[in-house]
């Protein structure tokens, strides 16, 4: 797979996706200070290229299982940004009717099996979606997003092993942002090598820079292709940084000031992307600026509509537990 000469439209799409995630979350970060957003918020700012790069190879028939840090995955998979914003504000019309919130945004129509509040739970779910794809004899794949911390969960290991034993069409994307909550990946991963450990399970896994759209899209594309060809489970360990704390409100004492400041400068996927496309003269800066403007409007509207929306009516509490009971 060689992405260096992607058609322009796909380049613009990739940028739009990353920018939308960035703007969506930066705005949540700000709105959150007003006290109008309830519950836990985990922002993926800094990791947008991974979501955009992986999802650039998927259709709505393909499934993804996401994490607690799932806004970016949902947006990249095609979820409606306004409905997501309403969900985060706990409003009627939210993507989950206000019942899920940030940590449970799901969109089955788009093949998005949900953000998940249980770290690692996506592993087994993803191989289940892969099993459906296999039983249908389609060439659909399932993609599982996991953090460096999640990579230490028993259910994830089981899913990795079982996917190989059953030959399931699944790709494991390990988003290594260096920390699980406040604990460094080099401590929590005994071998200090997530990709190597996955390889020990029989899953060929590459390591790539997850802050560069082109490298991650390239690696993910290769992995997804191999899976579609029936070559069995594949993995990608993508290194990136979260620009904010683990959750909104995290004072980040476990990170040096230097680190917090530098990552924004050195490892910003949007800056990297602009630099790449400028270098090769592939896009005009004006085209990117136009997207920035569009996205800003979209997010403004999303916030305004979310704020204006009603809360769900209390009788919704009893609804939709079962299909029939």
């Amino acid at each position: 797979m060689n992405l260096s000469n992607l058609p322009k439209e796909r380049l613009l799409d990739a940028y739009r996706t990353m920018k939308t995630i960035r703007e969506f979350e930066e705005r949540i970060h700000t709105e959150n200070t007003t006290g109008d957003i309830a519950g836990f918020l985990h922002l993926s700012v800094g990791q947008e290229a991974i979501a955009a790069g992986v999802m650039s190879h998927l259709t709505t028939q393909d499934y993804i299982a996401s994490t607690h840090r799932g806004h970016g995955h949902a947006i990249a998979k095609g979820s409606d940004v306004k409905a997501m914003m309403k969900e985060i504000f706990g409003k009627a019309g939210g993507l989950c009717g206000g019942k899920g919130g940030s940590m449970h945004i799901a969109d089955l129509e788009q093949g998005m099996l949900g953000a998940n509040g249980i770290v690692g739970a996506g592993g087994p779910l993803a191989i289940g979606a892969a099993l459906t794809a296999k039983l249908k004899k389609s060439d659909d794949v399932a993609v599982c997003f996991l953090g460096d911390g999640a990579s230490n969960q028993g259910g994830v290991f089981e899913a990795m092993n079982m996917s190989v034993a059953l030959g399931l069409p699944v790709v494991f994307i390990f988003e290594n942002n260096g920390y699980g909550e406040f604990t460094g990946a080099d401590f929590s991963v005994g071998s200090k090598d997530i990709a190597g450990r996955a390889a020990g399970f029989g899953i060929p896994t590459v390591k790539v820079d997850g802050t560069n759209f082109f490298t991650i899209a390239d690696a993910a594309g290769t992995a997804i292709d191999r899976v579609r060809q029936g070559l069995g489970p594949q993995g990608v360990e993508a290194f990136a940084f979260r620009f904010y704390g683990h959750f909104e409100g995290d004072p980040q004492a476990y990170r040096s000031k230097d680190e917090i400041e530098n990552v924004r400068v050195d490892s910003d996927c949007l800056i990297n992307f602009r630099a790449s496309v400028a270098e090769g003269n592939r896009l005009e800066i004006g085209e990117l600026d136009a997207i920035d403007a569009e996205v800003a409007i979209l997010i403004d509207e999303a916030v305004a509509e979310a704020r204006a929306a009603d809360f769900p009516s209390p009788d919704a509490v009893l609804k939709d537990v079962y299909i029939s009971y």
Partner: protein
Amino acid sequence: MAIKTIRQAIGEALRLEMARDEHVFIMGEDVAGGRGGTGVLDAAGGVLGITKDLLEEFGEDRVIDTPISETAILGCAVGAAVSGSRPVAELMFNDFMGVCFDPLLNQAAKFRYMFGGKAETPLVVRTMYGAGIRAAAQHSQTLYHMFTSVPGLKCVCPSNAYDAKGLLIQAIRDNDPVVFLEHKALYDIPGVETPDEAYTIPFGEANFVRDGTDITIVAMGLMVHIASGVAEELAKSGVSVEIVDPRTTSPLDTDSILESVEKTGRLVVMDESAARCGFAHDIAALVADRAFGSLKAPIKTITPPHTPVPFSPALEDAWLPGPEDLVKAITAVMEY
């Protein structure tokens, strides 16, 4: 119609539903048995042989042996269900939920609600439970009270072959996640007339195992059979016992239970789940609230003691609620 055991009824239900709907598949440890061995592939059909012959009929794609990885088994089944399949996963013993409760507790049970009504998770988990076969503390528990307490799960506990078949078919056709519990001491008890063709029994409809007027016994699984024996015996001395088998703990047929107690004025719940926060207490609380005015005597709950299940036959027999316990409770209530 032929006489069938629960073991046969369950195998039949699985075969019929797999034949009827290509989305149905089974998965679990050794549900076929023999993958990667030097002998035959279709070696086992589960540790009890219940899924025997399904491999031959439906092939390896739909009869899926797995590694010993229960979280991956159940989680995979949940993921398969929510993406359009209809898995029947086997959790060999319900005690093993210790290693794999999350896919039920936090995933399948909550998807529809958390996702605003958009998910469908048509999943069945078949699992063995219950004491009496000297399987000791980690293979003898009755844990349906825990499943029952989780909103979003349905929970089924048949006590005879007819119910087992109709309820399992219902479970497979049902669009919500269902835990289907099989009492290991009941698989091969004398069978009952059970149709050859497919039929369903709706969830939330209790079975009046025996009509009576003096006292209501609510019981499920193995306990139904103990209660029946006692009722037979007591009838001779003029005590008319009504036995209600809820068959599904969730949904629960509260109306039937309440009606019965309104008629008899007396209730004993005999249940193999927990001595604390168990199913017996759930029923007692229901009645103490909603049929209080009809009650002529205290509600008795008969459960095992608040101890793990002991291994030694001498101890397990003492541990398991038996006919004497029930007679004693009925007598106390009748004489109140």
